[in-house]
């Protein structure tokens, strides 16, 4: 892989200790939020990150942006390690990596004016002040599709979609290289989702951004991503180019997810063979042994219980399509294949 890697995660582990006791807080258990993730993000691409609630994608996002220090493993951004930086270098790092949050209502301080919120990065990094800052903020507002004359308004006076635009404006203020979007459209109405996604894609083209796009809606991820990584219970289950992954998923979990994605046409939906997974997602405090998916997997056997499968290409796939499974899905076992894919997994406009 000689392509330009902007972000490299090597065996990243993030555990949260659970402590008990009044005076001497003893650790009694850990939440294995992220348990050994290795990923690459290339310059200029959009890496989609999917998984159910609790799979660790939000935690991973926060590790990437430096909000959580990792328990072990390494994150390198542009060749430089992300952990253990002094104050000056941390600030420099923050200018390069930014985040767009999920909740348009919670991610903006309701007591501050919008202009002040967007202008925050300029103040924190001491870049622009006074009228110059105001000019830049208004420029950003126009860029994301907001009326710059609303500079002095409060977030409560904007709609959900507009607030998300404010969040985006704040994220791109310092012209970062990488933006992690943590379910940026999950809380929005469907019609608004399209607008925000188009905005993000336009900005990517215009400013040369790289995205890590986290979502649990498969159709959205398919529309925006160049490559997709599927996470389950803190580990990567499968990773590869979008179309390949959606056409020929190799991990049973991906297979099941895709088959369960809703489809508009009721006839097609009725014909569809669905794989219904048994049980709930187990707790990340005590993850299952071996392959974490084995309690719910229809193909599980003793190997799966005993041994964790490595993340590698299967069935002669290209090197970059990897899956972690002892019994990967063969072509004829794919539930939603290339033939149906064009019709069934809806494309985004």
């Amino acid at each position, binding site marked *: 892989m000689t392509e330009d890697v902007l972000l490299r995660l090597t065996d990243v582990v993030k555990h949260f200790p659970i402590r008990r006791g009044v*005076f001497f807080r003893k650790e009694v258990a850990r939440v294995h939020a992220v348990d050994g993730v290795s990923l690459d993000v290339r310059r200029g691409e959009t890496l989609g990150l999917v998984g159910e609630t609790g799979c660790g994608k939000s935690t991973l996002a*926060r590790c990437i*942006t*430096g*909000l959580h220090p990792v328990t072990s493993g390494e994150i390198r951004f542009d060749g430089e390690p992300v952990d253990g930086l002094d104050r000056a270098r*941390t*600030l420099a790092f*923050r*200018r390069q990596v*930014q*985040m767009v*949050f*999920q*909740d348009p209502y*919670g*991610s*903006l*301080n*309701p*007591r*501050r*004016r*919008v202009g002040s919120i967007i202008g*925050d*990065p300029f103040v*924190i*990094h001491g870049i622009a002040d006074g009228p110059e800052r105001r000019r830049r903020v208004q420029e950003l507002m126009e860029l994301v599709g907001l009326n710059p*004359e*609303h*500079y*002095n*308004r*409060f977030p*409560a*006076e*904007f*709609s959900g979609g*507009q607030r998300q635009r404010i*969040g985006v404006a*704040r994220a791109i203020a310092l012209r970062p290289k990488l933006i992690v979007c943590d379910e940026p459209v999950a809380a929005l109405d469907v019609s608004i989702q399209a607008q925000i996604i188009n905005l993000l894609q336009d900005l990517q083209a215009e400013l040369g951004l790289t995205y890590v796009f986290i979502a649990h809606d498969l159709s959205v991820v398919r529309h925006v991503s160049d490559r997709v990584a599927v996470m389950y219970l803190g580990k990567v289950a499968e990773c590869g180019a979008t179309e390949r992954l959606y056409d020929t998923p190799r991990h049973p979990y991906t297979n099941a997810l895709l088959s369960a994605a809703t489809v508009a046409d009721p006839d097609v939906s009725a014909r569809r063979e669905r794989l219904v997974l048994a049980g709930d997602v187990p707790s990340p405090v005590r993850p299952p042994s071996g392959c974490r998916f084995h309690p719910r997997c229809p193909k599980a056997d003793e190997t799966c219980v005993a041994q964790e499968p490595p993340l590698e290409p299967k069935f002669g796939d290209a090197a970059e399509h990897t899956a972690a499974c002892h019994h990967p899905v063969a072509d004829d076992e794919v539930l939603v294949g290339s033939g149906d894919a064009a019709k069934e997994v809806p494309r985004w406009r």
Partner: protein
Amino acid sequence: MAMTETRAIEGRSIEGRGPWRLAWERLRRDRVALGAAVVIVVIVVLALAAPLIADWFGHGPAQQFRKEGTTEFGLPVGPSGEFWFGTDNLGRDLLVRTLYGARVSLLVGVAATLCATVIGVVVGMTAGYFGGKVDSVLSRAMDVVLSMPYLLLALVLVAVFGPSLPLTIFVIAFFTWASIARVVRGQTLSAREREYVEAARSLGASDRRIMFVDILPNIVAPVIVLATVLIPLAIVFESVLSFLGLGIVPPTPSWGSMLSEAIAFYRVAWWYLIAPGGALLLTTLAFNLLGDGVRDALDPRAERLFATRRNRRRRSLRRRSGGGR
């Protein structure tokens, strides 16, 4: 909802109607609170003008008028043209003394509450924001201060150091900061978990900046409500201390000490009881009503014990026009 508002405001300069402005407008419409505010303003003005009024009458606050001010038995004289509120047993003008007492009460009430608020906010924010050991230690300190019998310890403090104005302010502030700190800590804890704090951190904001720029504006509202309730409590506290002889030293007039002197004479001089007592009651009542109004303006969803006429009228209108429930 926001859309129609935009169109309506277009044309004028687009100024945000933020939470403060809305609260202010709600407060303006609350007639009871406004009335209370007016009363407070009047009291403040009278207190500030006390020396002028004393001069106008020609009666100083500690001046004893044995001849005109007391009967031949040395008892106080009732309200008259000369002494509008009557006199006390030493022939001193009660009106002037009551006004000077207002100065003391207001000064102590506001100063003590201000000190307690500053300390409480700093400690509470620090405990709530940093968590961990810092929080444990500070929370224990708050708990201990809150569970101490305050008047008893005030007794000991005064016994050791002797009563005085600064000591009174210190005692009141010392036993009040913990309630503020507790509230602030709770608010900070919940504010800390909000996404906008995470966002600020991801932008690279320092802890100090996050505390003052992001968290502080969100905790100001409950602090203001608490402070408007604590001022009358501080005033009452001061009057209790002075009543027991532990607060302001005579001859400086304080409503509390005047009332303790009144015990011996109220049978023959009801004005001796009513003047300072009425002033005290009026002041605390006004502050409490204003505090209620401020709390409702800042958080209109809170269930109100004392509904104003405006609300009752609105509610009955809604019912008559066939509204839902």
